[in-house]
């Protein structure tokens, strides 16, 4: 189905980005106008993502630009993530940047700086451009453009990372850009290999770069080349996704970037690159059978998980701790994908969604802490319970959610992953993973207790950080709870569709059961989504 909304979805942030750069002509009104523009853009983006997702639910896919842009269920899932997280980050940014403006940009070589008007403009402009590139990555049907978009995310976010202009911020930005461009260059290499293989098979060369066309001809691709290509792709895009050992930019970047940016990086960008990897893995699965990609996923998943939890042990910096929690979760997602089968893929995608909700929330919270304490060190940040009870409540809830305590959403996706592992016979791997997760659990809990409890430093004033910085957190918190307790039918349909897409090459039979339908049962009126679990109940 041709979808003009899809085009608008890309253009809105792009226009907002350009406009943001030029508003300084308005002098004193710059900031309000910037903020208005910003709000309008993120809201429009959010609405458009929902529209596009709705179209996908109705018609199966949304197309634009003669198939160069295409959103199927898998894509829609990611589009929605980008839209929602972009919107919430957008809201959060307003409060955050106001506070940082109040702190002011200083030229001194301090650990954590503030902002000035110029940088604010850059921030808003790049914010939207960043959003645009991510949306492009997940809507593009052209594998080369996909790569371009991913590379562009790096470039657009580079200055966001270094926005504070302090020594650590610049260092982080440099590392981020260099490592990611290098990594993504590997990705390019892999992409080229796939494309060059496809171009020999597909008569219409203009279509050879379309993912849909490659998938159609996947079985005739050269296996060796594809293997080579996939290795490059996994390593390349894996760099961006924060898979260990290519993750090394990640802690520096997440900790030094302004919090809304960290939230987007960890909550969304990671997903977008994973999306690319998943897209390629579908091709590989079709061409080589599932085992090749799955084994790679499993290996890297376990490595990521294991290394990440050890990085988290004894980490003194809140943001770095949260940053390392990303490879941990990516590892889990990869393991789930590596386990394969409908359950595994579903578990992986669900974990991906849940992780992005919770991790975004956590970075918002760390931003609030930063605003209050001007520090990220666990030695300094103490007694949040006294200083800002609400923030501290959210932080605790976030920690619980992140470690997968019920009733939060990660509990269920974690559970599904373990179930998938057991169903596929990886008992011991699952036990090892759970034990490794215990370390993450320990580290996060230590952080949670250290920050919220204890005696707060005397110079810190009591008080919350304001509506715009708390509301997005509250929304995410509610989301985390809701997805833990119920699963909205639309999301279920999207997930089902996505699983179908990912699983397409493997099993001939699509998911059993009808599409999700809500039914009320029991006094709680639990939303019942039949197809969601039905594929296990029927074995």
């Amino acid at each position: 189905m041709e979808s003009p909304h899809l085009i608008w979805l890309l253009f809105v942030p792009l226009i907002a980005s350009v406009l943001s750069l030029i508003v300084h002509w308005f002098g004193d009104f710059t900031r309000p106008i910037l903020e208005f523009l910003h709000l309008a853009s993120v809201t429009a983006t959010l609405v458009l993502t929902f529209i596009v997702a709705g179209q996908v639910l109705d018609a199966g896919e949304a197309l634009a630009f003669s198939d160069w842009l295409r959103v199927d269920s898998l894509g829609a899932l990611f589009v929605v993530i980008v839209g929602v997280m972009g919107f919430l980050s957008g809201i959060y940014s307003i409060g955050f940047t106001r506070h940082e403006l109040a702190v002011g940009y200083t030229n001194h070589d301090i650990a954590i700086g503030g902002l000035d008007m110029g940088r604010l403009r850059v921030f808003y402009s790049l914010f939207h451009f960043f959003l645009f590139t991510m949306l492009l990555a997940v809507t593009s049907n052209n594998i080369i453009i996909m790569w371009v978009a991913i590379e562009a995310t790096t470039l657009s976010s580079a200055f966001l990372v270094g926005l504070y202009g302090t020594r650590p911020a610049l260092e982080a930005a440099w590392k981020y850009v260099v490592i990611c461009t290098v990594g993504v260059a590997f990705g390019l290499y892999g992409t080229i290999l796939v494309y060059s293989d496809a171009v020999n098979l597909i008569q219409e060369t203009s279509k050879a770069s379309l993912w849909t066309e490659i998938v159609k001809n996947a079985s005739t691709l050269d296996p060796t080349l594809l293997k080579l290509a996939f290795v490059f792709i996994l390593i390349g895009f894996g760099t961006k996704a924060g898979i260990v050992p290519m993750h090394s930019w990640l802690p520096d970047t997440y900790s030094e970037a302004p919090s809304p940016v960290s939230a987007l990086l960890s909550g969304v960008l990671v997903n977008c690159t994973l999306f690319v990897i998943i897209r390629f893995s579908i091709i590989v699965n079709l061409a080589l059978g599932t085992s090749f990609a799955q084994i790679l996923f499993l290996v890297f998943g376990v490595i990521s998980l294991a290394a990440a939890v050890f990085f988290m042990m004894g980490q003194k910096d809140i943001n770095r701790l949260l940053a390392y929690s990303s490879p941990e979760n990516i590892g889990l997602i990869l393991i789930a994908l590596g386990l394969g089968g409908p359950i595994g893929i579903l578990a992986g995608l669900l974990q991906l969604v849940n992780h992005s909700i919770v991790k975004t929330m956590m970075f918002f919270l760390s931003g609030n802490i930063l605003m209050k304490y001007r520090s990220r060190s666990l030695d300094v940040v103490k007694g949040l319970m006294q200083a800002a009870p609400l923030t501290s409540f959210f932080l605790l809830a976030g920690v619980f959610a992140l470690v997968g305590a019920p009733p939060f959403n990660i509990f269920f996706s974690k559970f599904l992953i373990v179930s998938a592992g057991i169903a596929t016979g990886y008992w011991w791997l699952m036990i090892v993973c759970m034990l490794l997760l215990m370390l993450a659990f320990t580290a996060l809990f230590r952080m949670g207790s250290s920050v919220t409890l204890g005696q707060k430093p005397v110079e810190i004033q009591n008080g919350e950080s304001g509506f715009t910085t708390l509301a997005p957190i509250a929304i995410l918190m509610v989301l985390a709870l809701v997805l833990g307790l119920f699963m909205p039918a639309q999301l279920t349909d999207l997930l089902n569709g996505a699983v179908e897409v990912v699983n397409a090459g493997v099993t001939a039979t699509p998911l059993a059961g009808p599409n999700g339908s809500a039914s009320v049962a029991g006094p709680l009126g639990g939303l019942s989504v039949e197809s969601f679990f039905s594929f296990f109940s029927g074995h």
Partner: protein
Amino acid sequence: MDAIQLLISSALTFAATGLLSLLLRGLERPARVVSGLGGAAASVLAFLSALAAFVGDSASLELTGFSAFGRFVLAMDGLSAFMVGAISLLAFAASIYSIGYVHEYRGRGCGELGFFNNIFIAAMLMVVTVANAFYFLIFWELMTLASYFLVIFEQEKKESVSAGYLYFLIAHIGTALIMLSFFILYQQTGSFDFDSFRNAGLPLGIQSLIFLLAFFGFGAKAGIVPLHIWLPRAHPAAPSHVSALLSGVMIKTAIYGLIRLCVDILGAPLWWWGFVVLCFGGLSALLGIVYALDERDLKRLLAYSSVENVGIILMGVGVGMMGMSLQLPTLAVIGFLAALYHLLNHAMFKGLLFMGAGAVVYSAHTRNMNEMGGLARAMPWTSFVFLVGAVAISAIPPLNGFVSEWFVFQSLFIASSTELGVLRVFAPLFAVLLGLVGAMAAMTFVKAYGTTFTGQPRSVHARDAVEVPGSMLAGMGALAIAVTLLGLGAPWVTPFIGGVAAQVANVPTETLASGIQIFPGNEAQGVLSTPIIFLLHAGLLTFPLVAVFALGGHRAGQRVDADPWACGYGYQPQMGISATNFAQPMLAAFRPLYLLRTLAQKPLDGIASFAKRFGASLPAAEPVVERTVSQPIFAFVRTVGGWVQRMQMGDLRMYCLYIFIALAVLLIVIFK
């Protein structure tokens, strides 16, 4: 009302008056009166119940209990009725006595005292009538519990509290042993009813195990040597009417339990069971009295004497058990008769003596006999009843102690003529031992009475003593009358108790006759006529009087009213015979037996010091799991974490290298 209804109403009265007393704790006098009079009334009900059981058939009551362990069964057979009777008699006297006596404890919780006391008695009544092991244990422990609080009632005294602890601990261990024996039976029968236990049909080996467990379990409560150590500490620690109950009846519930389980239920099938009981009885009797002799604390002396008397009772039980296993009905009946009779007698006179001691303490505020003396003048009535008790316990006719000891002797004599070699050798020996014990008991109580009531007051307390209130005298008087009646009325009492004994021994009752006989027609009619013996004794006493009178030695009877002559010094009260110096010769004679105590102390000290050292090493053991398991794991994780974190050394070029290495490794692995 039949026996059971009476019993239940009695128990409920005890409980109700106890609770009422607790509620009235703020007002001490009403509390005292309620618990005392209520207890007395309840005791009357209990006694009537016992009588009703004797008169009517054995009664029982069944209720579906709250537990899965069978019904709540109350059964009044002869043995139970006998025990109820014994308890009720003493409880009656103690209750009356307590009305006055508890005044001593004013301001220290008279209400609570009444509560625990009455609950204690009620629990005892239930223990001896309940016929289900589960409920038996409940009441058994309830009895211990209530009496524990009575023992530590004088909580200001450290030794009271520690005595109570020791008492409760040993009782608890005993309970555990009893429980084990019940469990073994339960395992075989699937029920806790005594009735089903009877039909268990266990192998003899297991039965013997049950016997041993039960013997030591009940023995701990009965205070047999060497499990007696708590007794001389705990009994004196309690208020005196409670001491009376403790010594008088509570330790007898253990005898009851032993008879119930090993004789009634298991049927004492092996001769050595009885022999074990006999031996421990003999040992307890001997050591008990030897230690009593040495005591200067009046109440401790009485407590040691209880050990002795329990020993005597056990000797009777032992003989009876052997009689059963050897299928000699006469021996069995005589043995149990002796045991039960002595049980009853001891309840009476030991109760009397403790109450007497309580009266002394009430007036003189000390328990040390060396600080007494001359109390007979100040407290004539007390002195008199105490004398009655002392005479009775010394087995001097015509009072009851003589009667039951006589039966014990008789049972031992009959036993020595059985065909069992062991008995032929040992029964005479035990008879001799019993004689010795009797002699020493007499000596002990001469000392007790003499140093307490005669001579000069040896302390200010003793000098200022006055006679105790009427209720106390009434309580003691009642017991004195009972002691006399049980002695003089032996010919009429014996058939009753003999009937019980026969029931216990599971033989027909006709073999025992009653009446005044000196020479019984057959050995089964081993009944003595105490009136005749009394007359004989009285006659013997009149003989010297007549002689003196006839021979004109009337000067001898003249009273000389002058100061005692003391080798030139003025007489001092300290010069008189005291508790310490009186027993000096005996101490010398029985040095080895006293040495036992010091000898036993050594291993005990060893154990204690080992325990102390062991205990000292425990704190180090506490974190052992942490130190050996969790901390190493944690340290390991940290070390690994350190290695991993070193990967992130901050160098951009290394980071790029990682990517390259990852790629290279993958390429090599995949493409070889």
